[in-house]
């Protein structure tokens, strides 16, 4: 049912708003020199055409087309470096066209620290294929064989006869290559032109240097057009009115309740989805606030507090069990063990907490739609919008504009769905920006996790059995499940959702008998609930690492051995892991001794803690120095040392920036962050009720970047956030001899742990 307050015509008359029709679909090839020769029959770009990847302009500019997007990490500039390197052109000549679904091959979403790792080689090979073709053309033009040629900033010349030269622009500038390359597989698994020989990394001049981010001058001057800054002619403003509590639907809507607000165009209702559209943003905000809706009585109840939640996770039969590691004979390992240990750790729901809320503009016309938004996966948004509007995917064009840093949140482009539904209803382009309360309340959260670990050691203290179980919710908002507005208009999930990962549960250590599993606990309810879940930076790993790395420390404490030494014993065959651990310990000036530190007098206790992780073959170790106030329970993180190995670094400063950001965000998550809720839903609805780290909480940072030029590049967007909570937890124990097995480490939890601990180190 749709409730139209005014017909579209009346509305247009009333406001004088101008609806301009404009070309929804400029030919996909408009940035290309000529035709649409590189399109597949369905209208998508053909990955087997070199022209789908890059184009050389008449002025020598190299335009690179990618579905990978800038989300604040430098990825897009780094990809430009890779292309510049292979083509031997200055990086300033590269122009990146990013995230337009009509102008790029689907290379997979910008998630999971996979962009440099996977899209990097795709562009390296595509650019190498382009270079090969350009050399072939130059050889013919200069009447030599290609091996006699050298390239300097896009100018090909004959070795030893520099006067004989021709530029890339002269060869193909403004024209298509018309070259076929191979491309097999899809998304980030696509292998592009593997048969072409790329440069030897020894000869790299651009890759490995700290080129500055392309977009920063525009970002610091207000010239950058974020998703929030997109304005389309005739655009109206919409707001969605979400239910106040779980599991309700609108029973009645009092249309008169917003009669007094001028400029309101329409109230839109589709199923349980209710929104308003107005001609100004302020009118839309006021209307959404004022609109009186009677909601049905809730039927589903959520767990009302953390204890109920963790009991639910523990006691509900899993919908799926995901095995990460299963080796040896666990039973035998435990029966041979000289001593057995057991502990469980809790991690709360946490928010992505974008500083700018969800925002998108949609223009739906008939069976076509254009979306301006900031999703991490533009093609994913294309798919969800097509499903929602029941139109073919190729009828949806997504044009990317960067949103606020999202850490996984923009894998689920809820704003685009809201805007699309409202635009379709009102027949004009509509911009929807969520309120802060809606973003906090309805963003899909990083799932809560309960991690249970059991281990046995032999007579030498060596780990011989390791049993790790991670209980948590899959992502109810994910690539395989409907998003919020879709659920509200009646789409039903037919899948529990993607799992929250399996890494970080101790697989890094060599243990003869080891089992690591993730139990997926159902989190779908009959209605959309505010405690939705999705991928939050390094999904699930921080919690698993917190459990496994604190647990290893607990065993080292019991054995009265140094925690670095104890880890090293189980890393004998892991060269990169042990080097990474050592690098952090060395940098931190780690003094060998068991934990806790000798008891200190005075009210402030100091401690140090270490933790290590591996994610997708990248490594990170963290040493944290903390001060614990024994009277108030306040924890201050004074310094964090981080060592980081992500293979060959394309741009060391970008890696450094990511590590700094990951660590600081990790400190915030460890010390402050916990989504509060009751049986009705989320109660953390602003920055006061969900505090994050402030400038005054920032620790000193000291980062060691380990470069491995002989290796492939791996992602840096996530690994270094993973061990932060574990290192801080271990440092708190080191300081005061009290073990915290639940994040965040609030003063109240510290005081409770101190009370529960027989005065290990609590003299004051």
């Amino acid at each position, binding site marked *: 049912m749709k409730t139209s307050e005014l017909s579209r015509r009346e509305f247009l008359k009333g406001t004088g708003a101008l609806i301009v029709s404009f070309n929804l679909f400029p030919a996909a090839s408009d940035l290309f020199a000529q035709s649409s020769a590189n399109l597949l029959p369905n209208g998508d770009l053909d990955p087997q055409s070199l022209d789908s990847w890059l184009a050389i302009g008449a002025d020598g500019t190299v335009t690179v087309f990618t579905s990978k997007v800038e989300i604040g990490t430098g990825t897009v500039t780094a990809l430009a470096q890779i292309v510049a390197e292979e083509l031997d052109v200055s990086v300033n000549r590269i122009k990146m066209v990013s995230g337009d679904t009509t102008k790029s091959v689907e290379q997979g979403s910008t998630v999971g620290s996979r962009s440099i790792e996977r899209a990097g080689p795709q562009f390296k090979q595509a650019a190498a294929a382009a270079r090969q073709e350009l050399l072939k053309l130059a050889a013919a033009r200069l009447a030599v064989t290609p091996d006699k040629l050298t390239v300097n900033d896009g100018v090909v010349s004959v070795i030893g006869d520099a006067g004989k030269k021709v530029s890339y622009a002269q060869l193909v500038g403004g024209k298509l290559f018309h070259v076929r390359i191979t491309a097999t597989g899809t998304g980030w698994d696509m292998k592009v032109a593997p048969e072409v020989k790329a440069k030897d990394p020894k000869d790299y001049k651009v890759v490995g240097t700290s080129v500055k981010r392309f977009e920063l001058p525009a970002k610091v001057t207000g010239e950058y057009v974020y998703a929030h800054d997109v304005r389309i002619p005739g655009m109206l403003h919409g707001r969605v009115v979400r239910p106040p509590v779980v599991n309700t639907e609108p029973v009645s809507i009092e249309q008169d309740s917003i009669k007094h607000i001028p400029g309101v165009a329409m109230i839109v209702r589709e199923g349980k989805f209710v929104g308003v559209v107005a001609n100004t943003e302020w009118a839309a905000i006021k209307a959404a606030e004022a609109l009186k809706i009677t909601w049905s009585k809730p039927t589903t109840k959520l767990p009302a507090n953390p204890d109920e939640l963790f009991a639910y996770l523990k006691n509900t039969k899993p919908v799926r069990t995901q095995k990460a590691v299963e080796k040896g004979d666990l039973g035998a390992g435990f029966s041979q063990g000289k001593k057995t240990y057991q502990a469980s750790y809790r991690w709360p729901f946490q928010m992505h907490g974008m500083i700018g809320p969800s925002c998108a503009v949609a223009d739906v016309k008939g069976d076509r739609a254009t979306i301006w938004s900031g999703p991490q996966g533009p093609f994913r948004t294309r798919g969800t919008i097509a499903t929602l509007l029941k139109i073919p995917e190729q009828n949806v064009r997504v044009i990317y504009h960067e949103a606020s*840093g999202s850490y996984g949140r923009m894998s689920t482009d809820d704003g685009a769905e809201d805007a699309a539904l409202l635009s379709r209803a009102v027949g004009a382009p509509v911009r929807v920006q969520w309120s802060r309360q809606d973003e906090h309340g309805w963003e899909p959260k990083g799932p809560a996790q309960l991690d249970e670990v059991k281990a046995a050691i032999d007579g030498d203290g060596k780990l011989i059995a390791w049993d790790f179980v991670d209980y948590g919710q899959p992502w109810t908002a994910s690539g395989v499940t409907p998003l919020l507005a879709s659920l509200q208009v009646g789409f039903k999930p037919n899948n529990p959702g993607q799992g929250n990962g399996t890494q970080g549960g101790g697989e890094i250590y060599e243990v003869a008998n080891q089992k690591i599993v993730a139990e997926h606990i159902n989190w779908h309810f009959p209605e959309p609930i505010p405690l939705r879940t999705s991928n939050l930076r390094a999904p699930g790993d921080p919690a698993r690492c917190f459990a496994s790395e604190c647990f290893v420390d607990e065993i080292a404490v019991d054995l009265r051995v140094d925690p670095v030494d104890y880890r090293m014993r189980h890393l004998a065959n892991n060269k990169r892991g042990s080097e990474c651990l050592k690098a952090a310990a060395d940098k931190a000036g780690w003094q060998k001794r068991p934990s806790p530190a000798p008891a200190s007098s005075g009210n402030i206790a100091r401690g140090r803690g270490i933790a290590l992780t591996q994610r997708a073959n990248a490594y990170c170790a963290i040493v944290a120095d903390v001060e614990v106030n024994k009277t108030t329970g306040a924890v201050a993180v004074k310094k964090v040392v981080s060592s980081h190995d992500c293979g060959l670094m394309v741009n060391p400063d970008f890696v450094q920036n990511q590590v700094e950001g990951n660590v600081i965000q990790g400190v915030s998550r460890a010390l402050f962050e916990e989504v509060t809720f009751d049986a009705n839903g989320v109660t953390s609805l602003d*920055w006061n009720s969900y505090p994050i780290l402030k400038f005054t909480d920032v620790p000193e940072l000291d980062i060691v970047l380990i470069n491995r030029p002989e290796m492939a590049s791996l992602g840096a967007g996530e690994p270094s956030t993973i061990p932060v909570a574990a290192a801080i937890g271990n440092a708190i124990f080191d300081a005061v001899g009290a073990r915290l097995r639940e994040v965040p480490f609030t003063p109240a939890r510290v005081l409770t742990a101190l009370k529960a601990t027989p005065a290990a180190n609590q003299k004051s």
Partner: protein
Amino acid sequence: MARISLKVNGKARVVDTDPETPLLYVLRNDLQLNGPKFGCGLAQCGACAVIMDGNAIRSCQLPVSSAQNRPVTTLEGLGSTKKMHRLQQAFVDEQAVQCGYCINGMIMTSKALLDKNPKPTDAQIKEALAGNLCRCGTHTRILRAIKRASGQKV
């Protein structure tokens, strides 16, 4: 609706709007100034900061009528990519941006700080920015950029 006279980035502007509209929406939607950003609308994050009468204020909570004829400076009023203000240049030099959504607030708040205290200490900068949230964790670079812009050793 009412006609309201504003002085933004040194220019006189007149807008016709609901006088209760927060200044932020007028700057962004009526004057198309994208520097100030909506973050919370609750004066909790600082993304919307502009300088009015020499102070960094939160434009998300100030009714436009209260800004009548008072000099307002936005990020655009400091400089452009062609000619950056030294603070903007320092943020680029230090690569002190990740997503950049918070950066308007960081630059405008530190501009107001440096105008009053040209050589602030680290502690003074942290204190001045304590109400400005950055989710990307760019804090240490932001501190360095402000030190650099103030001509102090980084």
